[in-house]
Every structure is written in C-alpha cells, then in structure tokens.
C-alpha cells in the first residue's frame, strides 16, 4: 500500500502519461492497486490543492475520464507559442446539426434535415470526419437509413463529462416560454390565434392575393 502523498504523485504521473486520452478512474485504480473510492477522493483532494498552490495545470473530468489541461486564464501565453494548435471553430451548419444529433440521437439524416429545413449531407460528412458523430445503427424501413449518434470525442471537444451535462432543452426553452413564443409567432404571422377570417375579408382578399401571386 502506498502512502497518500506517493499515491498522488503516481496519479499525477499516470495522468500526464495518458495525455489527451485521459484515464478512467478504474484504470488508475488498477494501475495503483487501490480502491476506486480512494482514487476518486484523492483526485478531488488534488484538484483542491493544485488550485491553492497556484499550479499551472489542472485535473478536469471529461467524457468519464480524468485529464490534465492547462488553465484557461493562461491562454494568452499559449496562443503566443507558434506550436499551439490553431483551433478552427465548427461552422454554424455543423453546430446546428450536432445540436440536433446530441439531443435526438439516434437520429437519421432525413430527420435532421426535416428540423433544419436544409440538406445536411455536407455537415454530417464534416462531423463524421472530425469524429464527433458516428453511425450507431440502422433504422427500420426503406433503405435502412443510417442512425447517427455522438461520440466520445464529442464530449471531449466540448469538455463535457457526459451527455447529461448538456443543458436540458427545457432549461433554456421552458414550456411557458415556448407557449408564449408560439402565441407571438402566430401573431406575427398574422391572424388572431382563433383564426378564421370573416366571409367578406376572404372574398375581398382572394382577388388581390390571386393577382399578386400571378403578377
């Protein structure tokens, strides 16, 4: 059995060795022959201590692994380094597609396109290439279309512990708000929510409408 301080040093080294791939708590437990609970507790302690000591790296939990990263507040120094990877942002199309897949997975392309109202083949190819989404199965029905889901890299890319960490759609778009928006949209689209135009209005409108459509 290792002493706590030695164990912490070993954990630091293991996390360093794993780099961007990170380590599952179970992998650390196995390599150190320690109990999982002890590992988890020690890592929490290390996170606290490193912050207090003003260390230049931190332990984060991403996609169910622990990972070492630099501190966000030091980013300007790393940006100055020529070697720093230049990070390209995802396009809006890719991000929209990704949001839909993240919340609705598994989902077929046709359904993504139905929601976005545009063809999304290019966005899907781009996301697949980047490893952010993958084929997770086939839907029933004609042609057995591909079902897409997000990958582990997706969580890593956005620094999420798990999918549950994504805000619930309701939290940023609650029901009451949605109902209000619905009413508002209706109003902006024209007619009172009750609906029908009067007899005269529609007869009167028909002429002009038909005329303007034609002309």
């Amino acid at each position, binding site marked *: 059995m290792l002493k706590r301080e030695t164990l912490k040093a070993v954990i630091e080294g293991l996390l360093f060795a794993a780099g961007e791939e990170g380590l599952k708590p179970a992998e650390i437990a196995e390599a150190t022959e320690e109990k999982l609970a002890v590992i988890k507790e020690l890592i929490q302690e290390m996170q606290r201590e490193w912050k207090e000591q003003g260390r230049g790296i931190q332990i984060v939990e991403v996609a169910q692994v622990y990972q070492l990263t630099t501190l966000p507040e030091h980013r300007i120094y790393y940006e100055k380094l020529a070697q720093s990877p230049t990070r390209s942002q995802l396009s809006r199309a890719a991000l929209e597609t990704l949001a839909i897949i993240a919340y609705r997975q598994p989902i077929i392309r046709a359904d993504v396109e139905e929601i976005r109202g545009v063809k999304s083949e290019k966005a899907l190819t781009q996301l697949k290439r980047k490893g952010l989404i993958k084929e997770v199965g086939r839907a029933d029905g004609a042609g057995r279309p591909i079902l897409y889901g997000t990958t582990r890299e997706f969580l890593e890319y956005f620094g999420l512990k798990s999918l549950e960490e994504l805000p619930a759609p309701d939290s940023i778009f609650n029901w009451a708000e949605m109902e209000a928006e619905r009413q508002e949209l209706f109003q902006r689209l024209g007619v009172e929510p009750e609906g*029908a135009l009067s007899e005269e209005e529609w007869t009167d409108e028909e002429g002009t409408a038909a005329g303007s459509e034609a002309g």
Partner: protein
Amino acid sequence: MDVQIKLESFEGPLDLLLHLIDRAEVDVCDIPIARITEQYMAVLSTMRELELEIASEFLLMAAHLLAIKSRMLLPRPEPEDPLMDYMDEEEVLDPREELVQRLLEYKKYKRLSEVLREREEFRSQVYTRPPMDLTPYAKESNPVEGISPDDLLEAFVEVLRNRREAETSSTAQLTRDEISVSDRMEEIAKLLYASGGSLRFSQLLQTRWITRERVITTFLALLELLKTKRVWIRQEQLFDDMRIEAPPGEEGTLVEA
C-alpha cells in the same frame, strides 16, 4: 428589399423566416402571413438578381408559404360541411400551425447550438498534450492477441461497404437537385409548344422522375411563366386540373431562341 440582409448568412429557409419574423417586430401590429410571404419572395428574387444559387429548400419553403397563404384565404369548413370529406385532419387545422411548430423546433436547436458554441469557446482556452508513448513499458506481447486474419478481412470489407453507401446517398442527392426553375420553365414552354398550345397541369407531373422538389419546381416555373405572361392558366372550378395555354396568337413565340 432590405439589402442589409446578408443572404449567405442564413442556414436555411427556416433561419431566414425567423429573421423576417423577428424583424417584423418593428411593425407594432400584426404582420399578415401574406406580408411575410412577400418579404420572403423578395429575398429570393434579390438572390436571383445577384445570381446567387438558390438552394431548392428555399424554393420549397416559398411554395409552402404560398400554399399557406392561399389556404388562409379559404373559408374554414363547418364540421358537417361536405367539403370535409375531401380534407384530412391536417388541412382542417390552422394551416400555419405546422409552420409555427417547425419554426419553434428549429429555434430550440438553434439556441442549443449557441450553447455548444459557448462550450467550444471555453474548451478551446485550455490545452492538453498527446499521450506518452507507453510501448517501452509494454512487456513483449502480441499486440493483435485474439485477432485473426479473418477479422482483418472482415474489418476491411466493412469499411469498404460503409464508404460505398456514403457515396451512394450523395449520388441520389445530386440527381434530385438537377433541375432549376428556369430550366423547368423552358421545358414547360417546349412541352406546351409541342402539344399545340394547350396542356393540363397534371400532364406536367406525369414522368417517372417525379419527386416533391420537382412538383414544386414545376409549380414555381409555372408561376414565373404566368408572371411574365408567357402562359395563361385557366381553372374551371376548385380542385379542377389547371389548363395551361399559350397566350392567343403567340403559340410560336413560347420558345426563346
């Protein structure tokens, strides 16, 4: 038409529509669907003037808006109305209902994608490093333990098959987008000329290749021909097949050189 609208910056028709609707807020009172439709069509025609390629989705939405607009003009039938027999449940509902639902659904994911953008931004502020090479620490062992040459073949075939399917679907995509409204206009003009200056609308849709996009392209092409007075359209009564005719005395001038 407001040139402030950066046309390329819209992700699609729903995005553009949301923008138009949001912008309509400056008008205190109701903006009728007719006006939103007009603005939408104005954007499309600006795109055409600027010779920007208009994706078929934008045309699809245009047709949809026109359909809603025209359905809004029809009286809502009473439940015992015999007309009800010809309408399915969807048609009896407010024609805007479906559009509103789609806009809200789209808006929801648009917001969620903004959340993802923030996370992307945040995550891009930290750096990590590639994993260390652990092979020097690995004891001499077979790295392909438990994998047979047959597994290798199977993996190869699987990869090839997935690629084939990806290619296949993009081929289908291309064939569908092939015909533009202006090409379709010329096709219709030629067809009309060939059939002696008179055609039924349904005849235009009698091909093996008919798809939803094609029906819409045909419809829009027809509207365009009508607008430029290159065809006349007659309909005896509601739901009758439309008759497309060359303007009197101009049967020979339909096809442009």
